[in-house]
């Protein structure tokens, strides 16, 4: 048995060894073989598409499908942006508002596949009274759209931009910064407590992941079958997951190669641990930032479609929500200067994170700086230099400010498929951070950590209720 395996292994190593020598294929043949799959595939696709093979199976008459992608309300006018997302051309024949035919104007009544058009309906709509708009096509198909609480669509005037930016600051950036103020308090906590804090962070992020995914998928359902909203969401989420994972690994490679000469010193663990904490804080901040982009998008969209009256409640809810997110960023920073029994050390020993003992200058590069070869007082000094007030403000900005472009995007432009893509990217980014933080937490399971994780999920649920 052993012999046989040896022999086959050798054969694999030297394929031209014992057997007859095969003549190398000619260049022409190699080229032909390289092209054959492509040509063959093209022919197959052609046969499937034009050979009427698919139609024998599908049968059926194509169904008309029109998606209302955007609604804009101005005094006395309702304007709908519609897209034919079905397989067959659609002609818009009549418009019904609140179960009554209404005169309207449409830029082009017949929509080809994926074509869009604008339907303008003069209608004396009233603030906060629900509007039900239906388009009747030439075949009698009804396309319905509900505006639950109409209000004038905000325009892109500078005042509106500024107002939305203020809302973004109030609901995201400032609360995150306030959450970071708890950092010194978290620092004095024991190893067990900081481990639990990490678990708390993981709980917050895991909840955000579920929440963002649910939001994105619900919005995707409204996009219409033709554009495949769920597919767009998946594209954004999985693409973002891959890209952010690549960015993180790229950072590891760069750091490990530059830090190689000092590998010996890293056995003390401390500098690597501190820097890992900083790096993790950045990751968490970026993930939360992307989530806030999504939250801004959601609030902005809500305001644009006529839920502006809910603005106060929404902003208060998100503000509390974001305070807990500030804590999530602070948790990895708080645990970094502790002795090497701390969860962060595991990051460096984790084979998934690259070779043990790497030292890095902080993340992103240029942040906080130096490696600290000695423990004790040196570590304490590094702490002060590494997590400066400026760095904390930058973290808060990265985590909180993306809410502002989200608000602009949601509040001032049509949502539809781009909003789904945005939420997909947010979900993918959060998923990547969840994987990174989760890797640390699972190494040191404890009842306290489990309780902390669960508490975080509960807190997120409760603050979500307020929004």
């Amino acid at each position, binding site marked *: 048995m052993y012999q046989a395996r040896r022999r086959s292994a050798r054969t694999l190593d030297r394929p031209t060894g014992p057997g007859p020598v095969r003549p190398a294929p000619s260049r022409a043949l190699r080229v032909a073989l390289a092209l054959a799959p492509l040509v063959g595939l093209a022919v197959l696709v052609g046969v499937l598409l034009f050979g009427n093979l698919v139609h024998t199976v599908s049968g059926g008459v194509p169904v008309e499908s029109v998606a209302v992608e955007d609604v804009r309300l101005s*005094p*006395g006018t309702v304007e709908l942006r519609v897209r034919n997302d079905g397989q067959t051309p659609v002609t818009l*024949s*009549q418009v*019904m508002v609140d*179960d*009554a*035919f*209404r*005169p*309207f104007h449409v830029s082009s*009544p017949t929509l080809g596949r994926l074509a869009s058009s604008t339907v303008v309906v*003069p*209608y*004396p709509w*009233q*603030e*906060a009274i*629900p509007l*039900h708009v*239906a388009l*009747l*096509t*030439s*075949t*009698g*198909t*009804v396309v*319905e759209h*509900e505006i*639950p*609480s109409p*209000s*004038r669509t905000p325009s892109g005037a500078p005042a509106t931009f500024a107002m939305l930016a203020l809302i973004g600051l109030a609901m995201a950036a400032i609360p995150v910064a306030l959450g970071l103020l708890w950092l010194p308090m978290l620092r004095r906590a024991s190893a067990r407590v900081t481990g639990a804090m990490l678990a708390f962070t993981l709980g917050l992020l895991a909840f955000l992941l579920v*929440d*963002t995914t*649910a*939001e994105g998928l*619900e*919005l995707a359902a*409204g996009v219409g079958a033709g554009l495949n909203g769920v597919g767009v969401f998946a594209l954004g989420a999985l693409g973002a997951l891959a890209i952010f994972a690549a960015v993180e690994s790229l950072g590891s490679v760069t750091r490990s190669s530059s830090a190689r000469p000092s590998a010996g010193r890293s056995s003390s663990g401390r500098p690597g641990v501190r820097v890992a904490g900083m790096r993790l804080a950045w990751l968490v901040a970026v993930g939360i930032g992307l989530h806030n982009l999504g*939250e801004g998008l*959601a*609030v902005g*969209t*809500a305001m644009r*479609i006529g*839920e*502006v*009256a*809910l*603005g*106060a*409640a*929404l902003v208060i*809810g998100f503000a509390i929500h974001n305070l807990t997110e500030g804590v999530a960023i602070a948790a990895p920073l708080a645990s970094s200067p502790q002795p090497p029994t701390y969860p962060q050390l595991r990051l460096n020993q984790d084979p998934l994170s690259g070779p043990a003992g790497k030292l890095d200058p902080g993340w992103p590069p240029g942040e906080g700086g130096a490696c600290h070869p000695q423990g004790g007082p040196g570590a304490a000094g590094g702490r002060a230099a590494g997590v400066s007030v400026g760095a904390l403000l930058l973290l808060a900005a990265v985590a909180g400010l993306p809410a502002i472009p989200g608000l602009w995007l949601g509040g001032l432009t049509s949502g539809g498929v781009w909003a789904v893509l945005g939420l997909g990217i947010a979900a993918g980014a959060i998923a990547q951070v969840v994987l990174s933080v989760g890797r640390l937490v699972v190494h040191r399971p404890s009842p306290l950590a489990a309780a902390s994780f669960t508490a975080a999920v509960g807190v997120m649920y409760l603050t*979500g*209720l*307020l*929004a």
Partner: protein
Amino acid sequence: VRRLGRRGFLGAFGGAGLAVAGGAAAAAQPHHHDPGMSMPGMVGTVGEVDHERNGFHPDELLRSYDWGEVSRAADGRTVREYHLVASEKEIEVAPGVRYPAWVYNGRVPGPTIRAVEGDLLRITLENRTDHLHSVHFHGYHPAEMDGIPGAREAAPGASVTYEFTASPFGLHLYHCHSLPLRMHIARGLYGAFIVDPPGGRPKANELVMVLNAFDTDFNASNEVYAVNTVAFAYAAAPIQLRAGELVRAYVVNVTEFDPVNSIHLHATMFDLFRTGTSLTPHELTDVVTMGQAERHVIEFRYRLPGQYMFHAHQTEFTDLGWMGMFEVT
């Protein structure tokens, strides 16, 4: 039109927490008047229906009668023979909106079959569709002439003949009674059936008004309402009347999916003859509500020239096509 739930819509913008209710309207909405909706007879639809392509004109539906091919029986009785053809036809029920109808003699409603009480009627149905069809008359007739499954239903490509005596006098209707019944009526297989009293009714300007509706997206609720099939047809081209003349309308409700319909005349009152089976009016009113297949004869006069509206007082139907105008000169 089937409405979306409020929750369903909010759900589309989901977890961000839009479910919290309340919040007062922020800014006052400026009052706006819509100049396009301020003329008598203005309607909400845009465009015009191609009546020629439909193959029938609203005026024809209003004022034409099929008296049948008349002959005399040996006993001196009047014999009337009618020929109905059931076929499939796409019709325009509102400007630009086409409905795949099932029709008698190419029109919806089918021809108004008219006879005098006591006449012998022979109605032949020729079925040129792929489905079973029949003609079921309201009024007295033998069981075997009932036009239901098992009693003179015409197979695809086949013909059947119904024979009975026109009775009692009044306003009746006929419709297909093949199964599923609701589908066969909603698709357009119906018409008015008028049996005149032997001595006739007083001379009048007579109109046939069949109240119907169309479920264009086939979800068991109507999108388009009308009198005589085409939404707002008599608002676009008002019905011409003379001041002071007696007007008699034969009003038949064949609306499916909605349990009741009605007719309301503006600026006048009418004598109501329920089912037209009496020559004495039941009441003087200006609105009468009718269940499915209910029908009444109404008589009225306009004293002064002008434009007068008539419509269903199920106001949703009014907004969706069941509204018209009289132009009195």
